[in-house]
């Protein structure tokens, strides 16, 4: 918006009028527009300074407990977050075993970096590694029981560890399942199509907390006597399948947007179903639906907060239960916890959406023009 105005201006005009031009064009072009601008400024003035004052200028930055944070005119209580940092990062993981969590964090960060930085080679291997090797590695490393590592039961995993682990593994597992379901829904085989439609519509029609409750408390009933699956694993399966149903619809959208000619041309070249799908159709369809795939991933990350309803102490729950601690409990402490949680979730989710926009611009848009509509 600002640039055309600048181009139109004569080169020797001073800076000041330029600003006025811009302001007139963008903020005060008409009476309604001026009114809107005034209202918006009033709104910002009413909201932003008090929040900033509460969160930063009047905030308590050091202290050891509730007593330091209550009192007239005191804002956010940041020492609460510092005091809880171990639980936030590790949950109730045994203190002397926390290096194992650090190793998993590090491995996850390296793997993600490999996938996310476009310049690095071997994306396929990185993807396979993150989707198959990383979950196995993380599970063995965290639960122990082999290589002299003491067992840490999954009930003790918590905090950011649990939130991130479920998100990463959930995304890695739900993506391929979602693609298969999408293909199944468009399959020419009626039984397969029907099964996929039933699955997708059932999962999308029922609230996640009901599905989680089933996974936690009812699924063991369906298993043969004496066989048990870890509760966390069951929760993970449900979250992955839930997300896969949504992923399937997103991928289906991409498949539908692809011109028929693509698969017909591939068939004319003598490629079979799987070759056509894997080499011709999917790469293009996935590029089309990339933004929606990423929003599915963001939804999954946010949905992890619901596992608190079946007794897990995820990131949000750790902060919430910290609020109930009598050593800290006070309204501004609770707000501080929620603000911190919101900022962390926001950073993660917004980072993901920005990355997808960047990917769209560079990779998908640059190389394959046909993939863009």
């Amino acid at each position, binding site marked *: *918006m600002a640039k055309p105005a600048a181009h139109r201006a004569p080169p020797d005009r001073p800076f000041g009028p330029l600003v006025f031009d811009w302001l007139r064009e*963008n*903020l005060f*072009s008409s009476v309604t*527009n001026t009114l*809107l*601008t005034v209202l*918006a*400024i009033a*709104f*910002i003035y009413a909201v932003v300074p008090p929040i900033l004052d509460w969160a930063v200028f009047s905030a308590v930055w050091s202290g050891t407990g509730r007593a330091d944070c209550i009192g007239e005119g005191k804002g956010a209580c940041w020492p609460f977050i510092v005091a809880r940092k171990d639980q936030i990062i590790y949950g109730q993981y045994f203190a002397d075993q926390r290096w194992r969590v650090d190793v998993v964090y590090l491995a996850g960060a390296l793997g993600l970096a490999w996938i996310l930085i476009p310049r690095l080679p071997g994306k396929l291997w990185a993807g396979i590694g993150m989707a198959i090797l990383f979950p196995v590695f993380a599970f063995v490393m965290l639960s122990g029981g082999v290589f002299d590592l003491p067992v840490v039961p999954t009930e003790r995993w918590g905090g950011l560890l649990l939130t991130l682990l479920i998100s990463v593994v959930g995304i890695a597992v739900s993506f391929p399942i979602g693609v298969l379901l999408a293909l199944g829904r468009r399959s020419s*085989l*009626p*039984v*397969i199509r029907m*099964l996929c439609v039933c699955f997708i*519509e*059932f999962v*999308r*029609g*029922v*609230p*996640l*907390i*009901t599905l989680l*409750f*089933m996974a936690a*408390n*009812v699924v063991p*009933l*369906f*298993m*043969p*006597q004496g066989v048990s699956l870890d509760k966390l694993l069951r929760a993970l399966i449900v979250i992955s399948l839930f997300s896969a149903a949504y992923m399937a*619809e997103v991928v289906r959208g991409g498949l539908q947007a692809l011109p028929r000619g693509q698969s017909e041309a591939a068939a004319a070249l003598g*490629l*079979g*179903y*799987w*070759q056509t799908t894997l080499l011709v159709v999917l790469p293009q369809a996935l590029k089309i639906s990339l933004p929606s795939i990423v929003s599915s991933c*963001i939804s999954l990350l*946010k*949905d992890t*907060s*619901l596992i*608190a*309803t079946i007794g897990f102490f995820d990131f*949000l729950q750790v902060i*919430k239960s910290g609020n109930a601690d009598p050593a800290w409990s006070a*309204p501004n402490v*609770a*707000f501080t916890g*929620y603000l911190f*949680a*919101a900022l962390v*979730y*926001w950073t993660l*989710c*917004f980072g993901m*959406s920005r990355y997808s926009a960047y990917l769209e611009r560079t990779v998908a848009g640059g190389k394959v023009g046909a993939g863009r509509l």
Partner: protein
Amino acid sequence: MSGRDDAAAAIAPPATAFWADPRLRGVLFQAVALALVVCLFWTMASNAGEALKRSGQATGWGFLWNTAGFDIGFKLVAYTARDRHIDALVVGLLNTLLISGLGIVLATVLGFVIGIARLSPNWLVSRMATAYVEFVRNVPLLLWILFFYLALIPVLPPVKQAMSLGDVVFLTNRGLYVPKLHWTDGAIWIVVAFVAAIVLAAAATIWSRRRQKATGHRPPDLLIGLALIVGLPVAAFFATGAPVSLEFPELKGFNFNGGLSILPELVALLFALTIYTAAYIGEIVRSGIEGVSKGQSEAASALGLTRGQRLRLVVIPQAMRIIIPPLTSQYLNLIKNSSLAAAIAFPDLVHVFAGTSLTQTGQALEILAITASIYLAISLATSGLMNVYNAMTRLKER
């Protein structure tokens, strides 16, 4: 496994073996898949049946007619602890429908405002709308619900210091108390008048559109409709001798008695659902409007239409075709997300029936099956309605 077989079969020379015939292979593959799914369900059912028999748990649907024994804090129909579980189910379902219905209306309104604001020529307004969308939808809904609940209660005054509006409406941390309509005989005529007014108003709209087509002049159908909808019930009210009286809330001991109370839980949940879903709807509306070709808007502006008229008469009707399908799934999400009510004690279907009734009766399988079916039915009904609406708008567009 099957994927590799298929691929191998595809490269194999045609018509050499039976497994190379794609049709036969398809039938075989489907039969195996179906058999596996049936087998899985059969195994699960028999395991569950055995486990239930072993533990001697009560089964069947009879529990629905047993006395529930618990009270529910917010109900749209008469219900006491002496009623049955099936009545509790109805109370919870109505609460879910109430919160979903209100949420859908409010989120749609706010979402359209946000979506249009994002495309506003006013730099400040469009940036604010963008900031809103990017902040709200990147934070989990559960956090929003908890936040609004936490924020709401301390802000509201305790009962003894209730804020009041002319001693008729009271606002306290127990909720908002408003006068309740008290129906007596004859009140049914007011409802009849109201329904008749709606039908007449719709007829007036159709008539005025015909006039517009025929003469180019449009009679003020909106005004006529409004007059009908307000006027007829009021006329009926007086004609039948004022059969509806107001029941005012009054302070008795701890709480206000009488009147209609709107719980803070309901408000917090509604707030969170609206704000969260509106961020998504805003994005849908924006991309829908952007999807309408620029020429449409330019042509409208060449005809001398203002920005508001362009949006209302030209752009949005066309954008609706793009907007409806994703909007439908947002509505479905909102309905399902209303089940987070349990986090702040609002008695919705999941909280009352799949929560309290489930614990009191212990019949988890039956109750979860009912709950899941109800949500599926609501989802199907909603998407069915939206599909009808979609088909209608599409027909009119030609």
